[in-house]
């Protein structure tokens, strides 16, 4: 499988125990980052906004990567996100069809960048979920729910089997009909 830009991590952390609080509450977060170092940093970023704890008076107890349970099954993924546009913060819900959650998240980042010019640091993923077929909201994903789906490929892209065999000039016009 192609390597993903964004990996899903589970980060568990808590404030450091102090004489006043021997057993501080432990918090767990699931988040997306490109690597483990960034995952830890993101964890503290979000936790600071929710609780009165910083990296300097906290500790990370566990950091695990989460992998896709069924990567050979096609699923509908719903992603709730909060992004910063040029004029303010907005919430959004997007649906994607993919085999893995990491793939769907990568699709989301690509689509936000192309459709809304929002770069990845300005996007916060609120929630992700696998959506069953009947609860999908977007026509774009619902059109692939047909059991007997079939469509023709209308444009055949003629390619050499590898980049080394590429030539600039061809002897005859290619036939583009499938």
């Amino acid at each position, binding site marked *: 499988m192609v390597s993903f830009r964004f990996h899903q991590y589970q980060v568990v952390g808590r404030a450091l125990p102090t004489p006043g609080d021997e057993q501080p509450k432990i918090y767990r977060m699931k988040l997306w980052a490109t690597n483990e170092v960034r995952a830890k940093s993101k964890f503290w970023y979000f936790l600071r906004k929710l609780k009165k704890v910083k990296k300097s008076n906290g500790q990370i107890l566990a950091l695990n990567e989460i992998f896709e349970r069924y990567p050979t099954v*096609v699923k509908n993924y719903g992603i709730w996100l909060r992004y910063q546009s040029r004029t303010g913060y907005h919430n959004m819900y997007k649906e994607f069809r993919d085999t893995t959650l990491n793939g769907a998240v990568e699709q989301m980042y690509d689509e936000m960048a192309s459709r809304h010019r929002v770069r990845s640091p300005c996007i916060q993923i609120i929630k992700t979920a696998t959506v069953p077929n009947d609860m999908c909201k977007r026509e774009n994903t619902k059109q*692939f729910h047909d059991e*007997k*789906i*079939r469509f023709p*490929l209308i444009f055949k892209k003629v*390619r050499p*089997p590898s980049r080394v065999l590429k030539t600039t000039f061809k002897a005859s016009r290619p036939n583009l009909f499938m």
Partner: protein
Amino acid sequence: MTFKRFVEIGRVALVNYGKEYGQLVVIVDIVDQNRALVDAPDMIRSQINFKRLSLTDIKIDIPRSPKKKTLIAAMEEADVKNKWEKSSWGRKLIVQQRRASLNDFDRFKVMLAKIKRGGVIKQELAKLKKESAA
């Protein structure tokens, strides 16, 4: 000029780019407009872009996303391998592979065979010319 080969569940396709170049795969599910989930008896089920697939005429009868066993059984029943090797596209591919794997001695034998065939054709042509001249 309607379309005869459709992307559908059970369509057999040939991979024409990438690591699995030359493999026959079966479309097992459709991810979205550009990608399909494909499977073959000797590979892990994975998603592939339609740009990397060339659809064939062969279609087998399978439900959406079947188990590997069901897929292999359906492929045996539809006799995909034999149908492919008998089809003109499949035969051409086999000939291409054979020609690419010849060694020098084989190429020498091919040269002799071509000369012999050319000789026989010229004899027949000479006979026909004589008959039409006469």
